C-alpha cells in the first residue's frame, strides 16, 4: 500500500472559526507545514479484543447497578467505517462519550444543573468487525447550554474518536441526530462551511434497524482518508 490521499480540507473546519469563540486563541496563525508521509504517518496503533469487550459498547448498562439501566430514549447508534475508496476498515477502535438524557456529562468540569443519572457513565468503546461495522447501545443525549454567545445550546450529539489503520486517518468528530432543530443554530456544527459535509455529521433515523419494543436506531457511517493501492517512492526534490 502507498500513501494516504491528501486531506480534503474543504471537508473540515478551519482552525480559526470566530463564531466558535474558543477557537480564536487556540488556532495556529502559521500555515501547516505539508509533509510527505513516512512510516510514522502511515502506521498507527493497533487494537485488539483485549482493548474493548462486548460490555464496553453498551452504555445503557456499562455504568448501571445490577438489574438497572440508564434513563432516556434508548437508541442503537450503528454504522460502518470505510475509507475514501469505500473499503471497510476492520478492527479499528471507536471510542464515544456523551451527555446523559438530561444533557449532563459525568465529568468533573461539567456543572450543568441537570442531574447525573446514577446508572449512566456516558462513555464506551468498540472495535469494528471484519466488514467495518460497529454498533453502540445507549440513550439519546440531551441538548445542553454553553457559554459561547450568552445563551447557546448544543444540539444532541455524541462525540466519536476513530483511529483507522494509520495516524494519517486519526479523527475525532461528533454525530448529531436527524431532525434536531438546534443543528441549524450551533456554531460548532457551522465551523464546517460546506453544507453537504455538515449533513454527513447527522445520523439518520433508521426504522429498519430498531430493536422492536426496545430501542430506536440511528445510522452514522464514518469515512476516513483513502489510500493509494500502489506504493511509489517519491524522488527527493531536486534529485
Amino acid at each position, binding site marked *: 500500500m502507498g500513501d494516504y490521499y491528501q486531506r480534503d480540507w474543504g471537508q473540515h473546519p478551519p482552525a480559526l472559526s470566530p463564531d466558535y469563540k474558543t477557537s480564536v486563541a487556540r488556532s495556529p*496563525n502559521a500555515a501547516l507545514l505539508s509533509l510527505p508521509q513516512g512510516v510514522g504517518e502511515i502506521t498507527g496503533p493497533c487494537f485488539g479484543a483485549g482493548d474493548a469487550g462486548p460490555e464496553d459498547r453498551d452504555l445503557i448498562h456499562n455504568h448501571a447497578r445490577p438489574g438497572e439501566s440508564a434513563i432516556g430514549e434508548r437508541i442503537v447508534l450503528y454504522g460502518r467505517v470505510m475509507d475514501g475508496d469505500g473499503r471497510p476498515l476492520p478492527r479499528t477502535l471507536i471510542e464515544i462519550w456523551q451527555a446523559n438524557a438530561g444533557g449532563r456529562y459525568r465529568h468533573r468540569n461539567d456543572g450543568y444543573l441537570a442531574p447525573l443519572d446514577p446508572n449512566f457513565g456516558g462513555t464506551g468503546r468498540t472495535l469494528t468487525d471484519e466488514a467495518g461495522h460497529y454498533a453502540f447501545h445507549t440513550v439519546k443525549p440531551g441538548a445542553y447550554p454553553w457559554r459561547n454567545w450568552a445563551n447557546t445550546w448544543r444540539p444532541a450529539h455524541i462525540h466519536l474518536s476513530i483511529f483507522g489503520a494509520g495516524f494519517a486517518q486519526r479523527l475525532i468528530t461528533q454525530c448529531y441526530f436527524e431532525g434536531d432543530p438546534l443543528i441549524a443554530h450551533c456554531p460548532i456544527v457551522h*465551523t464546517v462551511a460546506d453544507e453537504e459535509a455538515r449533513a454527513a455529521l447527522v445520523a439518520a433515523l433508521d426504522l429498519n434497524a430498531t430493536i422492536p419494543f426496545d430501542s430506536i436506531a440511528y445510522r452514522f457511517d464514518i469515512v476516513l482518508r483513502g489510500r493509494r493501492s500502489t506504493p511509489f517512492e517519491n524522488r527527493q526534490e531536486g534529485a
Partner: protein
Amino acid sequence: MAKPLNYLKETPSQTAGPYVHLGLAAGAAGLTQAPAELGTDIAGPKAQGERIRIEGIVRDGTGAPVRDALIEVWQANAQGRYAHPEGGGPVEPGFRGWGRAPCDFETGHWAVDTVKPGPVPWRGGMRQAPHLSLWIVARGINIGLSTRMYFGDEDAANAADPILGMIEQAQRRATLIAPREDGSPPTYHFDIALQGADETVFFDF
C-alpha cells in the same frame, strides 16, 4: 464533462470539546467505574532503550495554559520500528508505541513516561532523527493538531533530519526540539504554543 470518480469524502472533524477526558482519559474526568484506560503505558515493561519522561505545557495565543487539552503520542521503539504491520519489523512484546496524556486541570502540565525512540527510515535511503509524533485535541481546536518532538541531545541527527530541514524559517525549528534534563528518569521539556510569535510548527500530512 467526465464520469465522476466517486471517492467518498472524509467525515468532517469536530472539536473534541471540554469533556474529551470522559471518553479518552476517564480517570481525569473523575469516572472511577470504567474499563481500564487505554494509552497509559506507551512502551510496556519489556521495551529496550533508555527510559525517559517527557513533560510540558500547552499554551494558547495569550500565553495562558490550555488546561483541558489531551495529547496523543505515537513513536518508534529504540530500534526505530513502529508497532504496526508496516512498521519496519517486530517490536518487543507489550510495546505499543502509543499513549495519551491529559493536561492537568489546574496547572496545564502533561507528562508521559516512555523509552527514547531510535532513528526512523525516510525516503531515498535517508534517516529521520529520533522523534515522537504528537496529536493535540481540545475544546477550541476544530481539527487535531499534528506536530513532532525531537530530542535536544541529538544535535547531529537533528541537523540532518529531512523534516526539520523543510521548515523554511530556521528559527522555528527550535519549537520542535525538547531540551534534556538529566535525572532519574532523564526528562525532556516540550512546551507547545498553539498560536503566536513562538508558535509550534504543526504539520499536514
